[in-house]
């Protein structure tokens, strides 16, 4: 993966700084809605983590999954199921356990799904996603279709000393912000590694990768599990933020929305899908404020983006960033 053109990198960095400093100026800029916006932006960063993890599958490895929300939801449900009812769960136990379970489930689903490609892969992941949805919707394991509450945030402490109070909205904001940036960097490092190179090559031409003596299935499976586990982390955070899980977290609508964020943002760029998450959610907020029938302008917005921006927002940015000052070609 080539490095970002300098103007784009600077613009993104500026956005990250704006995001990092938001709690400082937010109250001054939007006094009436500050608390609401803090919560909203935290939620968007969580969705952005999920969108970036889906980009690893869709944009990088060429595996278009319509069942990614299953892992998002599973991560959330694990927090709800593993937490004791009226006291704080120990995050050092709950989080690794939740992620391990998500990874294990992803390994099974992934191993079965990567036998197929193309539209069959879209559909089989959809089928597994729906199975997950109905598993939590129809069973009595965690409240069925009503969902389940998490009454107390997990405690982050070492030897009885509290490191972070997650009930504090500001602390939670920065925790999510840190994980959001961390997930981006993790994915970038991963893609720069020899493993990541092979996964990228699979997305471009799988038979050639096979011809070079690699077994694409192994790489695809590992990429699938990594993407799913990061989505599980996002779901875990989402469940912690709202203190509530319900089967809708696993629904195909949720998977579809994540896919829209990836395509809208510009797939294969990692930063694009994060941008897509912000633009889509902010647009939704704007339209919701304008009219009760916000889905109508939202749908038209999505259609306009497809017709006008073939490579998503990231494609537009990269084009703008590259044109005025043609950068010397970075490492291929």
């Amino acid at each position, binding site marked *: 993966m080539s490095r970002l053109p300098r103007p784009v990198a600077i613009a993104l960095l500026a956005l990250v700084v704006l995001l990092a400093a938001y709690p400082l100026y937010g109250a001054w800029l939007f006094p009436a809605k500050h608390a609401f916006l803090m919560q909203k932006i935290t939620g968007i960063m969580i969705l952005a983590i999920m969108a970036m993890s889906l980009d690893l599958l869709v944009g990088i490895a060429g595996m278009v999954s319509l069942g990614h929300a299953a892992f998002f939801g599973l991560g959330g449900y694990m927090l709800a199921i593993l937490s004791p009812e009226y006291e704080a769960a120990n995050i050092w136990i709950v989080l690794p356990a939740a992620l391990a379970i998500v990874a294990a489930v992803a390994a099974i689903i992934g191993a079965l799904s990567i036998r197929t490609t193309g*539209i069959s892969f879209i559909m089989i992941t*959809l089928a597994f996603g729906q199975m997950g949805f109905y598993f939590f919707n129809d069973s009595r394991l965690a409240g069925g279709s009503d969902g389940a509450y998490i009454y107390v945030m997990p405690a982050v402490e070492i030897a009885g000393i509290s490191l972070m109070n997650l009930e504090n909205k500001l602390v939670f904001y920065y925790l999510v912000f840190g994980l959001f940036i961390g997930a981006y960097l993790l994915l970038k490092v991963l893609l720069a590694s020899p493993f990541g190179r092979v996964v990228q090559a699979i997305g471009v031409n799988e038979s050639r990768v096979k011809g070079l003596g690699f077994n694409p299935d192994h790489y695809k499976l590992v990429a699938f599990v990594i993407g799913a586990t990061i989505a599980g982390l996002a779901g875990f955070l989402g469940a912690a933020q709202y203190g509530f899980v319900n089967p809708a977290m696993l629904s195909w609508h949720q998977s579809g929305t994540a896919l829209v964020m990836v395509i809208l943002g510009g797939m294969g760029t990692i930063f694009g899908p994060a941008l897509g998450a912000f633009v889509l959610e902010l647009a939704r907020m704007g339209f919701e404020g304008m009219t009760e029938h*916000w889905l109508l302008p939202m749908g038209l917005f999505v259609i306009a983006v497809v017709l006008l921006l073939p490579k998503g927002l990231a494609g537009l940015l990269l084009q703008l960033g590259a044109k005025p000052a043609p950068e010397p070609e970075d490492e291929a």
Partner: protein
Amino acid sequence: MDVWFFLIQALNGVQYGLLLFLVASGLTLIFGIMGIINLAHGSFYMLGAYTAYWLALKTGSLLAALVLSLPIAALVGFGIETLLVRALYKRDHLDQVLLTYGLILVFNEAQKLIWGSDVHAVAMPAVLNWSFPLTDNLSYPIYRLVISAVCAVVALGMWWVIAKTRFGMWVRAGASNREMVQALGINVKLLFGLVFAIGAALAGLAGAIAAPVSSVYPGMGDSVLILCFVVVVIGGVGSVKGAFLGAILIGLADTFGRVLVPDFASFSVYAVMAAVLLWKPKGLFA
């Protein structure tokens, strides 16, 4: 639990399967021939159901409503192909997914704006509103048999058009080699527009004819869409024969699932699909 019970459930399953086939055949035709993944296909089903409901209110006759709602769905389909989908033939499948996802949002919201968010019942025509007695206390509603019959006739008609007519020949040729068909002087743009319109009309017909049984409600297209994708993938993408078998299989799995394992009814459909795909990753007739 006797033989009649199974017969009734089997009839229900086949009827549901035939209905699914009407919707899924349009989906698979559009994908097989034009290479377009149309997520908004379920919206045509909803459009058919709602126009049938509305026209039945206005005209007082469900039959008139059925006949009139067909060209409406076809026209809307043709318009969408010409105005929007046409721009995306050369683009990635994912762009089509995104565009038609946007269309779903627009359709769902337009439905709420025009017809509101209530569930509406659609009156069955009096002539068909009776049941066929099977035993002393079991009977079978005649309207469901009519649905099956109409679907079967349309399925046969489609087979005839595709296998025996010149138009069907173009369609089959277009599916296997688009450029060659164009080079032979056939107006592919118009052909594609027509195929899209026919697909939309099939889905609209299914929605209209099912309306008295299922009633009409917001979001009714979404669940049908997902089931149709399941059907198409089980049968093999692009294969009408596969869609037929897949639809019957899913209709039966769904119906018997509801009766035998009510807690995991919806689960059963996806379990069948996963099993088929693991056995034949490209579907039964790919």
